[in-house]
C-alpha cells in the first residue's frame, strides 16, 4: 500500500511524515531536483497549485510519487508507493490532506524566521482520511455484495475507468496480498470491501465480458477470504476501535445532495455508537444533521461522548474543512466584481499601487506584461517554444505575489525572468575541462584507475564550424601543454582531411615554443568514421597522448540514415565528452537540432555540452543559447566569438542573461 507520506517545505524541512515502509531519502531528493529544480519531468507547471491528478506522477526506482504543491506557503505534499500497485484513491488523499493541512496550519507556516510547525495532531487527521479514502475506494462495491454482481462490476468499472489495465497474471497475485495487507477489514462489510480491492486492478474493459462466470466465483472467494483473514488482519489503530461494532451496515441513506457516499462511514458510526439514544427517529435526525452541518455535530459530539468518539468528531471536522474549502472555491469562481463604485475604487487603488508597489499581481495584470516579455524574447531569437515555457513559468511564479515598494510590474517581471533564465542556463555541475582531463590522464595513486587519453568528439550540422571549433579547443589545450591527437572522422566530404591538416600545421607552428604537441590521425576518405575513431583512441593510448579530438562529418539532424551512424560511433569511440556545435545564427530550428542530436547516441548516452559558434555575428540576439538548453537541459560549455584560434570563451551565464534582457 502506501509507503510514505511526507509534507515538506521548499526550504527542505520535513514538517510531517508517516512511514509505512521505509524508503530511501534519495527517492524524494531525486524527485525534488528533477521536478522542481531542473524542471526536467514536468514542463507543465511544477510551480502551480493544481490538484494532484493534474501533476504527472514521478517514477523513480520502482516507486511512484504523487504530489501537489502549495505555492504561497511553499509546501509540497508527496505520497510514495510501489509502482506495482495502482492506488486510485491516492490523488484524493493527497488533495484532501493538502486542504486540511493548509486550513489547520497555514497561519503557522506564514511565520517568518522559523522552521518549527507544531502539527503533531495531524496524525489523527491523516489516519482518518487514510482509513476513509482507502475503504471508500471500494465502498461502492461493498454494499453490493448481496445484490447482483453485475451491478457491482458496473460501479467498479465506472469508478475506476481511467485505471491502466494490468496484465491478467498480476491479478491473481494481487488478490490475496491486497486482502492480507489491508488494515481495516474486521467488520463484515469492510472485509468484503478489502477482498474487492483486487477488483479495481482488473482491466476495466474486460469486466463486462468476465462477469458471467467470473463474478460468482470471486464472491465466494471473497467470503472465504473474509473468514480466514478477518482475525489476523485486524491490526492497526482504528481497526481495533471498530471491532466493537460488528453490526452490519443497514439502511444506507442517500442524501439529496449526494453526500451519502462521502458521509456514510460517519453516519454508520453514529448509528452504532449512539445506542444509548432512545428512539430510532432521534438517531436519524442526528445523523441527518451531521451530514448537513459538520459544525453542529462537532459541538454535539463533544458534549455527549468521549474516547473512541473523538475519531468521528474528527471525521466531521475534516468534512467541514473540506466542504468549506470546496464552497470557497466555488464562490471565488462565481463571484463577480463588486458594484460600479467598488470596481472604480479598486482601479484607483490598483493604479496607486502600481506606482507605490505592494500590489498583488493577478492574471490580468500579468497577461499584458508577459506578452511584452514574450515578444522581447522572440526578438532576441529565442525559439517560440522556449519563450512560451519561460513566460509561463514566470507567470505562475508571480501569480499572487506582492510587488515590493516602489516596484512596477514590469520590473518585477524582469527580475523574475532574470532569475529563471539564470537558473535554466546554470549547469548542475562544474564544467572545468582542464581538471577533468587531468583526472583522467593523471589519475591519483589512490583512485586505482589506469591512465588513458581523454576523448572529445564534436558533432553538428553542416557548416556550423565543427573543424574550426575543434582547432580552437586544440589550441587552448596546446597552450596548457597537453599532447593532442586529432582524428579526422570526416571521411565523406572532399577536402575535410586536408582542411584539418592545414589546421594542424598552423597549430604546430603556433605552439612550438609552448611545449604542446599535436598530430593528426587520418585514414583517408571512404572509411567508416567509427572505426577511424576507435583506431585513433587506441593509437593515442599507445603513443601516450593526453587528449584525442575527433572531428565528425556534418549531418542534417532530420536525416535518419546519417544520424543512425552516430550511435555506432558513440559505442566505438567511447568519448568522454560529446560536444555539439550550434550556430548562434540559427533560429527556431535550433530546438529540433539539439533534440535530435541529443537522442541519437543510443540509450543512456547524451550530449555533454554545446559550443555556440558565431556569437560575434549576432550581437545581443543570443536566444539560441536559451532554445537549445531549454530543449535538452544540456549546458553550454564554450562560445565562439571570432575568427582566431584564441577566440573561444567559457560560457558566462551572467553575460548571456544581461544580453538577453538588455533593451537595445
Amino acid at each position: 500500500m502506501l509507503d510514505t507520506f511526507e509534507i515538506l517545505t521548499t526550504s527542505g524541512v520535513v514538517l510531517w511524515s508517516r512511514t509505512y515502509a521505509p524508503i530511501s531519502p534519495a527517492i524524494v531528493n531525486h524527485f525534488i531536483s528533477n521536478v522542481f529544480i531542473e524542471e526536467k519531468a514536468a514542463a507543465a507547471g511544477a510551480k502551480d497549485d493544481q490538484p494532484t491528478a493534474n501533476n504527472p506522477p514521478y517514477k523513480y526506482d520502482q516507486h511512484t510519487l504523487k504530489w501537489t504543491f502549495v505555492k504561497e506557503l511553499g509546501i509540497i505534499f508527496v505520497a510514495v508507493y510501489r509502482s506495482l500497485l495502482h492506488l486510485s484513491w491516492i490523488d484524493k488523499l493527497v488533495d484532501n490532506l493538502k486542504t486540511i493541512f493548509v486550513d489547520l496550519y497555514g497561519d503557522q507556516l506564514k511565520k517568518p524566521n522559523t522552521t518549527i510547525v507544531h502539527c503533531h495532531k495531524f496524525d489523527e487527521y491523516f489516519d482518518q482520511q487514510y482509513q476513509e479514502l482507502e475503504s471508500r475506494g471500494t465502498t461502492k462495491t461493498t454494499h453490493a455484495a448481496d445484490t447482483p454482481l453485475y451491478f457491482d462490476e458496473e460501479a467498479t468499472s465506472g469508478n475506476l475507468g481511467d485505471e491502466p489495465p494490468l496484465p491478467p497474471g498480476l491479478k491473481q497475485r494481487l488478490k490475496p496480498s491486497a486482502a492480507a495487507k489491508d488494515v481495516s477489514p474486521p467488520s463484515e462489510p469492510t472485509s468484503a470491501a478489502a477482498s474487492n480491492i483486487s477488483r479495481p486492478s482488473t482491466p476495466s474493459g474486460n469486466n463486462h465480458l468476465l462477469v458471467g462466470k467470473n463474478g460468482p466465483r470471486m464472491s465466494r472467494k471473497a467470503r472465504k477470504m473474509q473468514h480466514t483473514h478477518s482475525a489476523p488482519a485486524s491490526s492497526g489503530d482504528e481497526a481495533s476501535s471498530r471491532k466493537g461494532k460488528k453490526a452490519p451496515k443497514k439502511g444506507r441513506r442517500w442524501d439529496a445532495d449526494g453526500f451519502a457516499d462521502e458521509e456514510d462511514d460517519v453516519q454508520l458510526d453514529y448509528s452504532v455508537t449512539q445506542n444509548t439514544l432512545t428512539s430510532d427517529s432521534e438517531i436519524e435526525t442526528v445523523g441527518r444533521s451531521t451530514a448537513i452541518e459538520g459544525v453542529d455535530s462537532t459541538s454535539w459530539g463533544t458534549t455527549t461522548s468521549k474516547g473512541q468518539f473523538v475519531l468521528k468528531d474528527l471525521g466531521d471536522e475534516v468534512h467541514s474543512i473540506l466542504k468549506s474549502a470546496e464552497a470557497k472555491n466555488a464562490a471565488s469562481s462565481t463571484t463577480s466584481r463588486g458594484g460600479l463604485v467598488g470596481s472604480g475604487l479598486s482601479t484607483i487603488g490598483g493604479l496607486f499601487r502600481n506606482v507605490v508597489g505592494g500590489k498583488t499581481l493577478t492574471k490580468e495584470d500579468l497577461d499584458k506584461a508577459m506578452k511584452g516579455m514574450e515578444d522581447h524574447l522572440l526578438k532576441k531569437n529565442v525559439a517560440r517554444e522556449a519563450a512560451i515555457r519561460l513566460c509561463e513559468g514566470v507567470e505562475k511564479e508571480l501569480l499572487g505575489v506582492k510587488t515590493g515598494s516602489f516596484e512596477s510590474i514590469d520590473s518585477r517581471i524582469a527580475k523574475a525572468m532574470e532569475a529563471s533564465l539564470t537558473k535554466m542556463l546554470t549547469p548542475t555541475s562544474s564544467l572545468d575541462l582542464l581538471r577533468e582531463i587531468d583526472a583522467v590522464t593523471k589519475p591519483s595513486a589512490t583512485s586505482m584507475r589506469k591512465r588513458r587519453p581523454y576523448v572529445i568528439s564534436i558533432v553538428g550540422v553542416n557548416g556550423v564550424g565543427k573543424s574550426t571549433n575543434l582547432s580552437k579547443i586544440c589550441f587552448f589545450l596546446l597552450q596548457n601543454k597537453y599532447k593532442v591527437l586529432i582524428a579526422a572522422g570526416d571521411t565523406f566530404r572532399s577536402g575535410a582531411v586536408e582542411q584539418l591538416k592545414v589546421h594542424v600545421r598552423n597549430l604546430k607552428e603556433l605552439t612550438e615554443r609552448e611545449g604542446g604537441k599535436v598530430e593528426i590521425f587520418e585514414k583517408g576518405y571512404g572509411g567508416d568514421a567509427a572505426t577511424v575513431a576507435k583506431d585513433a583512441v587506441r593509437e593515442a593510448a599507445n603513443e601516450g597522448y593526453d587528449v584525442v579530438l575527433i572531428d565528425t562529418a556534418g549531418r542534417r539532424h532530420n536525416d535518419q540514415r546519417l544520424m543512425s551512424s552516430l550511435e555506432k560511433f558513440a559505442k566505438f569511440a567511447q568519448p568522454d565528452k560529446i560536444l555539439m556545435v550550434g550556430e548562434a545564427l540559427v533560429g527556431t530550428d535550433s530546438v529540433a537540432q539539439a533534440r535530435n542530436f541529443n537522442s541519437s547516441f543510443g540509450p543512456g548516452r547524451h550530449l555533454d555540452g554545446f559550443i555556440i559558434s558565431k556569437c560575434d555575428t549576432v550581437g545581443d540576439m543570443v536566444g539560441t543559447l536559451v532554445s537549445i538548453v531549454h530543449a535538452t537541459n544540456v549546458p553550454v560549455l564554450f562560445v565562439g566569438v571570432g575568427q582566431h584560434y584564441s577566440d573561444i570563451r567559457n560560457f558566462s551565464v551572467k553575460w548571456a542573461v544581461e544580453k538577453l534582457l538588455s533593451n537595445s
Partner: protein
Amino acid sequence: MASTPTMEDLKRALEYIFTPSTPVITVGLLIVFLAPVLVHLYITRQTPYTSLPFILLAGPSGGGKTSLLTLLERGDTAVKTHTSQTAHAVELTVSTDAGARTFREAARDDAPGSHKKFHLVDTPGHGKLRGAAMAQLVGDGKAGKTKTQFGDAAMLRGVLYVLDAATLDDSLADVATYLYEVLLALQKRAGAGRTSRSPNAVHVLIGANKLDLFTALPAAFVRSNLEAELGRIRQSRSKGLLDSGINTEEVGSEEQDSWLGEYGSEKFTFDQMKEFDIQVDVIGGSVLEGNVDKWWDWIGGRI
C-alpha cells in the same frame, strides 16, 4: 427647506477655517508636519526591515545544512530533511555572558543569561541554485528589497560551510569548486571594501559533517585535501579560457582579482586568506549525533 441650514453650516465652517485663529493654525501646522512623518512610517512599515547580524550556511547539496539549522533551532534533535529549493532564515539567540553554554540551552524559551539575536540563513546547495548564497556574500547594497534578502550584506558575520566528510573522496571536486567561489567572493568583498569603510571581517568555518559515519575523514584530512584541491582549481582557472563577455582590455585588472590567496604562490593554504581578514577553520562534527557544540561556539564568537 432642509438644504438651507446645511448650506449655512458649511458656509460658517468655511469661514471659520479661513479665519486665522490659534486652533486652526495649530491644526494646520500639525497636519503639515505630521503628514510626511506618517507617510514615511507607512512606507517603512511596509518594507521588511531587518538589521540583525547573520551567519550564512553554504555548502554542496547533501552536506547537512538544513539539518543543522533544524537542530540548532529545536535544540534536541534534527528533523528529517530533503533537498532545499529556497533560502530560509531562522532567528536564533546566542548568550553573551556564558549563561547558556550550548545550543540546547539557548534553544529553550527560558534560557539563562542575556542574549543576542541573529539570523542563521540556510541556502540551497544544488548546483543551479547556488546563486542565492552568492548573492548574500556579494551583497548588492539594496537591502530589504525582497523577502529573500536577509538583511544587509554588511551584517554578514561569518560563513559556515558544511560538507559531507564521509563522501568527500568522490565529491571533492564539487565541494572545492563551490568553496573556491565562496572564498573568492569574500576576498573580492574584502578588497572592494578597502577603499572606503572596511566591512566587517567575515570568517569561514568549514564544518566537516557526518563524522559519525565510518568512512568520514577527520577534520585535519579534510583540511589538507581541500587545500590541495583548491590549489589545483586555482591553477587550472589561471590557465583556463576567459569568460565570455570580458573584453581583452579588462584582462589585466581582472586577473589579479580572480587569484585566490597570495598571488603567485606555489601552494594554496587557508592561512593565505588572512591577508584579506578571512580566517578559515576546519572543525569536525555530526549533526545526527548532535555533536555540533564547537560550531555553536564558533558562531557565538562571531556574533
